[in-house]
């Protein structure tokens, strides 16, 4: 059974803006799926429809086989949501926010209290359980939203730009945590601007542009379609780049340059050319964000 099955989904807002123009999308059970797109592409609208905050204009949506038209209650039970912006009562205590959310999902208070202990410990907020939400730092607030989204043990967790505005350390911590959740069998659908995030974690990815899905494939396949790789080279001293001009070198600073190499070309040849130009290489590694290039190309088309 698929976690999500969307067919011909259309959303036209009252203002006349057509946010979705017939989206077809399938997310398999257990997948780690990324929805990519520029601001206003329709990502949040799709999430809004899946979670019941936005009403669709046309099309069909099934969540783990439950249609949102005929059995939205059962469909919602399968979903946990982590929205883009903080949307909890800032004057409530951390544990109350999580326990109340469990209550809305029909979980008994005593069980919710016990489960909240486990989940708050897991996200590192147990010590803050009696703190008012507004006193938490930005990173803690985001972890609180994840705890709240997971309290009812959903089969799928939907995250709308979960790492936006989050510092590097916390972002990596969240990637690790999300990967663990996914490994334990929870399907994950996320939208993000960080393509590195997609490359590192996601198995499948859809790119949405102006309300339409323009690419839908595994991340591996998408990366394969990129004709060239970019390598970051650290050199002892920056010299003339004339000898390696064919590799589109971009000087980053006085010791670093990015070099593009076509997939059919050999690395030996590149290193040889660098050595012939007098460069002493101290570090050489593939640059991340390969997907970014593809993403930008697709958006420009």
């Amino acid at each position, binding site marked *: 059974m698929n976690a999500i099955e969307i067919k011909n989904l259309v959303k036209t*807002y009252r203002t006349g803006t057509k946010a979705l123009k017939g989206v077809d999308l399938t997310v398999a059970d257990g997948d780690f799926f990324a929805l990519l797109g520029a601001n206003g592409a329709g990502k949040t*609208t799709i999430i*809004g429809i899946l*979670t*019941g*905050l*936005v*009403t669709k204009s046309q099309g069909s949506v099934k969540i783990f086989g439950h249609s949102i038209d005929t059995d*939205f*209650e*059962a469909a*919602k*039970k399968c*979903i946990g*949501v982590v*929205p883009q*912006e903080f*949307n*909890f*009562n*800032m*004057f409530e205590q951390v544990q*109350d*926010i999580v326990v*109340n*959310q469990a*209550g*809305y*999902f*029909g*979980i*008994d*208070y005593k069980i919710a209290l016990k489960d909240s202990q486990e989940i708050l410990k897991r996200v590192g907020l147990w010590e803050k359980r009696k703190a008012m939400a507004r006193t938490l730092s930005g990173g803690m607030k985001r972890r609180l939203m994840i705890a*709240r989204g997971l309290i009812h043990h959903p089969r799928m967790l939907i995250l709308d730009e979960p790492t936006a505005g989050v510092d590097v350390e916390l972002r990596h911590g969240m990637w690790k945590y999300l990967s663990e959740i996914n490994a334990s069998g929870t399907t994950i659908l996320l939208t993000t601007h960080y393509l590195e995030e997609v490359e590192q974690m996601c198995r499948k990815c859809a790119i949405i542009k102006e309300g339409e899905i323009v690419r839908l494939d595994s991340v591996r396949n998408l990366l394969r379609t990129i004709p060239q790789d970019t390598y970051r080279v650290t050199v002892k001293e920056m010299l003339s780049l004339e000898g390696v001009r064919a590799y589109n070198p971009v000087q980053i600073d006085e010791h670093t340059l990015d070099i593009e190499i076509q997939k059919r070309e050999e690395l030996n040849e590149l290193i040889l050319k660098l050595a012939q130009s007098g460069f002493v290489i101290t570090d050489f590694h593939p640059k991340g964000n390969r997907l970014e290039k593809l993403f930008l190309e697709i958006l420009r088309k």
Partner: protein
Amino acid sequence: MISYEHYIALKTIVRKETTRIIRIWSQTLLPPLITQTLYFVIFGKFIGSQVRAINGVSYMAFIVPGLVMMAVISNSYGNVVSSFFGAKFQRNIEEVLVSPTPDWVIIAGYVLGGVVRGIVVGVLVFLVSLFFVHPVVTHWWAILLFMTLSAVVFSQAALINGMYARNFDEVAFFQNFILTPFIYLGGVFYSIHSLPELCQKASLYNPLVYMVNGFRYGFFGFSDVDPFFCLGVLVILTIILGLVNLFLFKKGIGIKN
């Protein structure tokens, strides 16, 4: 269909609302108590001593049901509109909207929250009135029924206000320009029979008249309007407002895109 999970969700909303009432007691419980006490002192004690008895009841005793009902109505209304609009404003209403909680449970939860505050404040005001007068209770059933139904009606009206309101001004608008005049013109401080005939007829279009009079009937055994007619009006208003709320929730007015 009502399930155990719906019951838990309802209990959660009511618990959350009740916790809020207690947490901010200095905003929810104390001010109405002070205001109503001042009414008892000024209208009941100072002015009331110069007003003749109404149907054999002293003016002080006459205004007790009206002031209690006034507290019930304004507090049940105020609780729901501020809590619901606050949840909309902070967007934490989304917590319950993304859950499987059906619309009717959300409506019932907020309404019950309003009823709790309305009745708690009403009872406190009644206890304060005992310092000034010892009102006779004739029909307990009427007191309980009118108090509860009035709180339900105004909690439901507040929910509609909360859904449509786009800012705090629109929340205050209904309270200041519609609710307050209706309360003061609803026979809290006077019998509508003391009004000119045209005003008496106009008063019958004010739903507050039926609440205050039905409630007053519970105390003194008399009222300006037949108490069973008053009850009928309240039941019809409860049903109509309930259906309107269900419709607005289904449409997602003010809460969904």
